[in-house]
């Protein structure tokens, strides 16, 4: 035998571990950039709560009921509720779902566009393992970013005596992970069908925004309300104000997994251009 190359390729678990490690390394700054920016925003909101708590409660009382329901601001009597309205109802889930879309799509269609896959797939790596690696690394990064957001906000709340409810704030932050993960799965599904990072990002982000608007309008208009069932935001809800709905969180996570599995199968079957 002339060669030293192993005839049997390494097992899927070893390949998956190597890919996840590689993808985490490629995105090693993401927890700092995304976590710090969102964490600082949340920390700022927590820090100003003590100085505005009285006036904002009066202002909220004068809002129309429909607006209060639409934006989940039935009452604003605590820092965690204020954080929920200001950050967790829109900005954080939107930003992290966008992060998940990009994080999943970049090592797949992004790498395809840059011809990186011609090199990477020269080794005995199953494309489904690469897709799984993209999902797993994204899931880990989401958790780390959320942990940074949680910690920075909690620390700011402690420093100014904002009185953030530990359980409410923790559940509110944890509740972001399933919806962001689900959009990561949706991005992977699109990677199985499209060949352009811009196209995947555009379609997935457009769907993300459309779902938010459907959910918002559904709360305001009885005519649109039935459409809320197709919006991920309906199942996201508000863990701070309404409690953490485990079935919805598991449902979103399962949807993300199913979309990702379908995406991985399609990605394996299609041409790499």
């Amino acid at each position, binding site marked *: 035998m002339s060669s*030293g190359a192993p005839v*049997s390729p390494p097992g899927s678990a070893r390949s998956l571990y*190597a890919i996840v490690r*590689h993808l985490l390394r490629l995105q090693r700054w993401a927890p700092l950039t995304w976590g710090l920016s969102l964490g600082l925003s949340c920390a700022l909101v927590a820090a100003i709560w003590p100085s505005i708590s009285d006036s904002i409660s009066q202002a909220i009382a004068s809002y129309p009921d429909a607006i209060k329901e639409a934006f989940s601001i039935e009452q604003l009597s605590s820092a965690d509720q204020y954080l929920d309205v200001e950050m967790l109802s829109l900005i954080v889930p939107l930003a992290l779902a966008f992060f998940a879309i990009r994080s999943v799509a970049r090592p797949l269609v992004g790498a395809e566009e840059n*011809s990186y896959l*011609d090199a990477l797939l*020269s080794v*005995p790596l199953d494309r489904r393992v690469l897709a799984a690696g993209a999902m797993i690394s994204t899931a880990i990064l989401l958790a780390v970013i959320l942990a940074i957001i949680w910690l920075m906000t909690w620390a700011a709340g402690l420093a100014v005596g904002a009185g953030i409810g530990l359980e409410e704030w923790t559940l509110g932050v944890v509740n972001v992970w399933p919806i962001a993960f689900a959009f990561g799965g949706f991005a992977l599904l699109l990677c199985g069908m499209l060949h352009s990072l811009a196209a995947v990002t555009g379609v997935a982000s457009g769907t993300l925004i459309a779902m938010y608007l459907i959910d918002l309008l559904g709360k305001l208009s009885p005519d649109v309300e039935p459409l809320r069932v197709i919006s991920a935001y309906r199942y996201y809800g508000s863990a701070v104000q309404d409690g953490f709905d485990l079935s919805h969180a598991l449902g979103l996570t399962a949807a993300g997994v199913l979309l990702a599995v379908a995406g991985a199968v399609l990605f394996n*079957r299609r041409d*790499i251009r």
Partner: protein
Amino acid sequence: MAPVIRTEGLTKVYGEDRGIIDLSLECGKGEIFGFLGPNGSGKTTTIRTLLDLLHPSSGRAEIFGLDSRSQSRAIRARVGNLPGGFAYEKHLTGRELIQLFARLRGISDLGRAEELAQRFDVGLDQPLKQLSRGNVQKIALIQALFHSPELLILDEPTSGLDPLMQAEFIRLLEEERGRGVTVFLSSHDLDEVERICDRVAIIRSARLVAIEDVHDMHRRAMRHFVVRFDRPVELEPFAALPGVQQLELVDGRLTFSVSGTADAAVKLLAGYTLTDIEITHPSLEELFMTYYGGDHE
């Protein structure tokens, strides 16, 4: 002995691109097989189909007797591939790239990678973005070779390499051939193919035109004569030479080409007193043009 690469009616058509149509060829163990054609003729499509990056529209390909679609991972474990226009994450160093590929190949010993880096005179500790095109190509060659594969698939391997490194690369390929490694080399550099390959497949507009032994091609190909005589000569005897072409007599300088053996031409010239003679072998480019007929479609 079973061929290392075998394609049967391999066809890949996508979009408006013709890709490759009805490609049937075999490449034997220890052979350096050239795959020659102009840009856009289907060389890279063929390689990407062999490696399962593209899925055939029809036909099939086998490598080591394994199906290129259903057994692609097992094939890739035994293959070293240098993609054309190699690119990877630019902030990785060469070492990090090799380490990643080694982990994905289940290899822990990077000794050969170090050896090759020394041979190609390239450092492994600089990010790819800081390397010149030639040095990136050296890293690409190392990642194709470091695991000592049984089959090397090389798409434009000397692209960006300076002449010294090209010569080193050719020496390396000869060593690999000596170890029984098979090389499938795609190129539009005719001189490169001429120097390295045993056989060459010529591809035109997505279709295989010919598979030739490089030495046979030369033997059968045109010889160009440029002759000066000590006195004026007539054209007629030269026009009667078998297979003569491009016969021209200008200012006492006779030029012509003959295909196949040059024996008759040499015997005819022996009857004259010559002041100068130049006989040139054709370049592979000229051979190539005989297959393309000037049509680079």
